[in-house]
């Protein structure tokens, strides 16, 4: 069953991940700061789900709640229709920083997740070598992260994320620290991998370009405290960083999302 299946089917499938009315306030010395005020969203199976919003609106907080790093004040997280505390240990979380362990070699970094889960070392190494070959990193198994370029490090981080076969990939501006050429390349690698392994992805980004090219659904958040402002299906034939950018619909979506974010800046100014 594909996510392209219309929602009008007799029995609509339960969303892969659903957030219901999530609220979170941070207590600081200068008073409480409400970050999420009743956020709800539904991510279907094999969605490439984009989240955009004004900077500092709490996008990363959403991920930290899904990943089980923070507890929400109230609200529900549902995974495949069942309430759950968090998806700790079941997500692949990738951030802007590659977060490779400097004391581990490339191979050891890639094996981190499998090691945490107590998988057998010999078998894991086989899988890891396969991934490293696929991503053009063969010959670098025993290098340390410091010896690699930024693009290579982020590729290692991507392998580390994929190799544990997570239920959902949480990508928090994963490529924003890279140059444009490397970013396009890695976006392509990501899309290929996601389609090949049939992954569900949630992508947080500032880059409207990126979200239109990659995502099939985008939620726009309000400024802090964040809740859902609008949800858009991005109906572009091929979600691949180069082809999508030349799709006739691309610029329409781009301008629509831009204006939605701009309206908020106008409101703030008023």
């Amino acid at each position: 069953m594909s996510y392209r299946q219309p929602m009008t089917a007799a029995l609509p499938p339960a969303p892969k991940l659903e957030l219901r009315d999530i609220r979170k306030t941070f207590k600081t010395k200068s008073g409480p700061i409400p970050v999420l005020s009743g956020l709800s969203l539904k991510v279907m199976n094999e969605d490439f789900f984009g989240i955009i919003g004004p900077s500092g609106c709490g996008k990363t907080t959403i991920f930290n709640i899904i990943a089980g790093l923070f507890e929400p004040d109230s609200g529900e997280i549902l995974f495949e229709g069942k309430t759950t505390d968090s998806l700790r240990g079941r997500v692949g979380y990738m951030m802007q920083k590659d977060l490779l362990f400097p004391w581990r070699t490339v191979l050891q970094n890639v094996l981190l997740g499998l090691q945490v889960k107590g998988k057998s070392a010999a078998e894991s190494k086989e899988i890891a070598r396969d991934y490293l070959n696929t991503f053009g990193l063969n010959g670098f198994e025993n290098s340390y992260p410091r010896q690699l370029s930024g693009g290579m490090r982020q590729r290692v981080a991507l392998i580390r994320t994929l190799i544990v076969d997570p239920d959902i990939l949480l990508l928090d501006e994963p490529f924003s620290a890279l140059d444009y050429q490397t970013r396009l390349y890695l976006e392509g690698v990501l899309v290929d991998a996601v389609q090949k392994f049939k992954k569900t992805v949630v992508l947080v980004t500032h880059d409207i370009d990126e979200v239109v090219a990659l995502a099939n659904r985008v939620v726009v958040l309000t400024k802090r405290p964040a809740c859902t402002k609008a949800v858009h299906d991005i109906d572009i034939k091929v979600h691949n960083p180069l082809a999508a950018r030349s799709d006739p619909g691309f610029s329409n979506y781009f301008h629509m999302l831009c204006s939605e974010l701009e309206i908020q800046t106008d409101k703030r100014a008023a």
Partner: protein
Amino acid sequence: MTIASESAAPPAAQDRVQTTRAREIRMSRTQSAPFWLVSVLQLALFAGFLGAWELAVRLGFVNAFLFGSPAGIYEKLVVMISDGSLFFDTGVTMMEAILGFAIGTVLGSAAGLALWYSPFVARIASPFIAAINSIPKIALAPIIILWFGTGLTSKVALAVSLTAIVALITAYEAAKDVDVDLQALLVTLGGSKYQVFFMVVVPATLPAVISTFRINLGFALVGAVVGEFISSQNGLGHVIYTASSFYELNTVWVGLFVLMFIGFILYKLVDLLEKVLLPWKQISASQNIRL
């Protein structure tokens, strides 16, 4: 994998260029000052110092009775080596210092890391740690000799009292500073607190722990020698103390030079240990830019 195969070549090629560049930088650094030249200059500096000293004594600028002389030191050295006493005293002091260093550093580092594990205990302990740290540990020497006697144990105990608190504070501060994002990453992968401790906190703290080894080797030698000053039958501290009370300055210098030599060798051993335990640090050091 269409995109990946299309554009795989350019970034990969770029990456290789970058790594070779790093290697070039490393090579140009080592080429700029060859090892033999540095060694020759160091030896020349040492020989020049001894020569100037000896000359000053011979010409009467410096009083040999109060300052000793390189020739006199050499004579004493030969005597102390041939009767075997130097090796015995050196062995005694090294034993005290190394035992004190090992026990103090291991206990201190372990306690410091354990405080990361329980912030609650750390909060309770912190004023006591600050208080213990502010005692000049040497002031404890008379009590320690009373408690542990005049033999090996009291010197080891003194060295432990000097080294443990340094190791504890360094390990705890370093553990507190470990990148929270690295810890968070392990948690999202399903890591337990135990796994975060052993897979993130301990390896991330290791460089700081090893760098305290250098400081603590010095402190352990201080503990051993001061312990020997106060009460002992042998050891380099004993040699220095008794010789100075007879105004045998050359013997005092033999003791001091041997202490210096021990300290130097132990320092080099820490360098070696660092290379073995922290291979990833070596790489970053070799990528230093030229200034």
